[in-house]
């Protein structure tokens, strides 16, 4: 049951399900994320991995949307020498770019390749910066690590306005809102009426395969995939 934000906020466990059977590899999630979070030119927080599978005549394209798994037990947090990485009450793992010293330990520690360092400020179109690049300069620090935050700013807005994650638009990550195939489902796992809980329950009933990536590293990722 959803208790609302506030006194029971620590019970919240935000998570995302990605239904791979629905993904069409359009990259809309990647672009939506880039615009929402004003990530620098060559940094994508939610890239889709496109790969060719099989051989002719049974060759096909395969898509794997990726992002930070916001792990229950994040190895990046443990690895950070300046304690720039923390986990919020709602389970979102956050990098404080101001504290980050660019040691890159988190990059090595992350089993999902979800963290990037903004190495150099540059413009995609040569001279001058685009409005998005100006925003990137304001929001991010060159030399610091950055990653997907499950659109934490939207979750903060949701908390302040009593909105329900994964249901209300302003309480839902940009990639989830944008996906035309609706293959990303988001919400609070502790709330049985949340979209993510319902989807997971439905999948179990249907006998679908639910998997997490690299379970052997025991990070308990809060992004799960479904076939």
């Amino acid at each position, binding site marked *: 049951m959803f208790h609302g934000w506030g006194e029971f906020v620590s019970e919240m466990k935000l998570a995302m399900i990605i239904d791979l059977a629905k993904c069409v590899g359009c990259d809309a999630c990647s672009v939506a994320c880039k615009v929402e979070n004003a990530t620098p030119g060559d940094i994508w927080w939610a890239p889709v991995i496109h790969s060719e599978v099989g051989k002719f005549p049974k060759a096909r394209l395969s898509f794997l949307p990726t992002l930070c798994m916001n792990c229950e037990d994040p190895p990046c947090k443990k690895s950070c020498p300046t304690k720039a990485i923390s986990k919020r009450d709602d389970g979102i793992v956050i990098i404080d770019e101001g504290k*980050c010293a*660019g040691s890159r330990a988190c990059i090595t520690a992350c089993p999902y390749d979800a963290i990037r360092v903004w190495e150099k400020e540059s413009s995609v179109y040569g001279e001058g910066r685009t409005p998005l690049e100006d925003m990137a300069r304001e929001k991010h620090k060159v030399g610091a690590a950055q990653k997907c935050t499950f659109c934490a700013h939207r979750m903060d807005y949701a908390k302040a306005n009593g909105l329900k994650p994964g249901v209300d638009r302003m309480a839902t990550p940009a990639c989830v809102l944008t996906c035309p195939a609706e293959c990303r489902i988001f919400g609070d796992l502790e709330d049985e009426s949340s979209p993510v809980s319902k989807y997971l329950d439905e999948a179990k009933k249907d006998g679908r395969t639910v998997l997490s990536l690299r379970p052997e590293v025991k990070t308990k990722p809060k992004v799960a995939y479904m076939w």
Partner: protein
Amino acid sequence: MIFIPVLVQFNGLVPVVWIDILAVVVVMVIVFGVVYRFAFWVKVVPSGFFSEAKRYITTRGLVSLFFSELANRVFAQRKVLNDSKVRRTTHLMIFWGFLGLAFATVWDDVFFHDGSLPVPFSFDNLGNIVGNVSGFILLLGLTVVVLRYAFVGKFKGSAKGDLIFLIILYLATITGFATELTRFTGSTASLTYSNYLVHLGFVAALLLSAPFTHFFHALLTPFMRYVERIQDVLFQKGVTRYPFQKKTAMASLAEDVRDGKTKATYPSWLDREDESAKPSG
């Protein structure tokens, strides 16, 4: 004003043997701290990374990559901090200034172990020349960094991670120069001694805190870059398996699960605490 440099017998204040004993204790604590901290970060690297890497690029290749990284990324700092010329230059100044001071300290310890240092700026002592030039370079670099943190809007508040390290290093450098200045201006020996003691205190603090402050990035960052370099080299060789190419490996895993080649492990931590239904997939 005529300056009369004085020959200072530092062992007149504190016997050199005491400083030696203190130095041994400091070194032991540092070694313990570095080993303790580094043991943790080695574990950050996926298990079997180096042994697997050895299969593809041999031990000789790994050693060669290590020295290539050491020369290019650490000493020349190529392709490091390339976002800003000022940032890179100041970083280089602090790095080489510190190394120069380390050289001067070792030099003086070897050739003037009894504490009878020649007068400052005397050109017959390499330790003096290197020490003063390096100290000046370090101080200049540090000053630019501190000024940028204090007054340039873009950098304000961005030094949270290295503030303790910066402050101690700055104070150690300034008190070092203060000691030199008191010697150079012919101040009383007691003033020189007190400056020297304060300087020694800051140097000890700098070194003792090194494993726990931003100073540690001097070891950690090159090590992590070395790991990344190995990944790059293996990627160029077409090795796409985990832990060298995490994303490609993840895509393969998902495909293998789809095709039934690998059995998926259900992420049970996603279940609600009151969950009784067990996964069937």
